[in-house]
């Protein structure tokens, strides 16, 4: 009987922002923002994103888009992932430069 009650609860609240369309929009905005970061990587990062990620003020626009299209927890998740990847990349690049013949 508890199961039936659970099944009929909240028939209207379907979180559409996690369905396919919304996801695709989010991914696009996310990729745009990170591309901007890559492009402007030589500029000084002055703005704070989240979870310790900083970005230059040139990317403010794409950041706003990113935050608009994606859920907050997703934004944090993607930022964290980006930082992780950057760190790994830096390690790999450093190793190469040090190894130089």
């Amino acid at each position: 009987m508890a199961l039936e009650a659970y099944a009929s609860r909240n028939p209207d609240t379907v979180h559409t922002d996690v369905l396919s369309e919304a996801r695709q929009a989010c991914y696009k905005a996310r990729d745009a923002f990170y591309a901007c970061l890559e492009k402007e990587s030589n500029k000084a990062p002055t703005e704070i994103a989240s979870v310790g990620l900083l970005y230059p003020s040139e990317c403010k626009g794409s950041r706003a888009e990113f935050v608009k299209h994606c859920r907050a927890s997703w934004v944090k998740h993607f930022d964290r992932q980006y930082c992780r990847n950057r760190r790994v990349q830096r390690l790999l690049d450093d190793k190469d430069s040090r190894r130089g013949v």
Partner: protein
Amino acid sequence: MATIISRNVNHLRYVNRCLSQFRRLPIRSPPLADTAPLRTLPILQSVVPLGFGIQSLAIYQRCLFGTSTASVNPENQAPNSSGEANSGNGKHSGGSHQSNESGKSVRGGPVSWLSFLLLIATGAGLIFYYDKQKKQHIEEITSASEAVKQGPSVGQAAIGGPFNLINHDGKHVTEKDLLGKWTLIYFGFTHCPDICPEELQKLVAAVDKIKEKAGIEIVPVFISVDPERDTVEQVGEYVKEFHPKLIGLTGTPDEIRSVARAYRVYYMKTAEEDSDYLVDHSIVMYLMGPDMKFVKFFGKNNDVDSLADGVIKEIKQYKK
């Protein structure tokens, strides 16, 4: 080589003593076997019970006692005195001691060539025998360890179990409803940013691929580990976008907890703001057989092709 010979001489003397003891006093042999001589020679423990012919050793006895040297005699004294813990023994060793001395006076020479050759032969024989035993033992160990690695695992992994959940149409589904067909189960949640959609896409693509490659029907199943947000409607909308055949299951938090426990799936809410959180969970797909028994699991590292091939391989092996 000289040390080996002298060691072998001692070995044989001890062996002869013990065997003669065995012959005279069969009942009391075990305690005798524990006295000083054999304690240092565990090798011979294995040799003696196997008994390579008490008669042949009797012949050796006579030959060896027939030829003795001054240097060997003191060594005889040593095992003699330790062996004399037994009264019934003293007589025989005294007798053989006598025959030693009588043998010495008869022959005169230190060691005859015949006894030397016999000694070498016995020594070599012992060495080869021991070596063979050791090699056999090592082979056994290596083959045993290899056998465990190569063969299929003993018994079955305790993954899987009964559950009572609701599918995305609102109907009750238990594990019995999934019997008779192969199923690929994935645990996730609808609010997953990127991993679950990716994995589910891989899952349904693999199911299609298996259908066209091998003609086998696999039922893809998605079980939510976020029952509080994943209602029936939510799950329904979610799975519809991936594949018409994809079954989405959800239920009460208790039911989900028991299913996750049965399938050994870890999941934990990352405590962020109240309604917007992510669920950390193990990323795994379970392949269950037609009897709903666990067959194989697939991790995140497989792509569509390796997933499809892995499943087909398991099905073919299972049928055998």
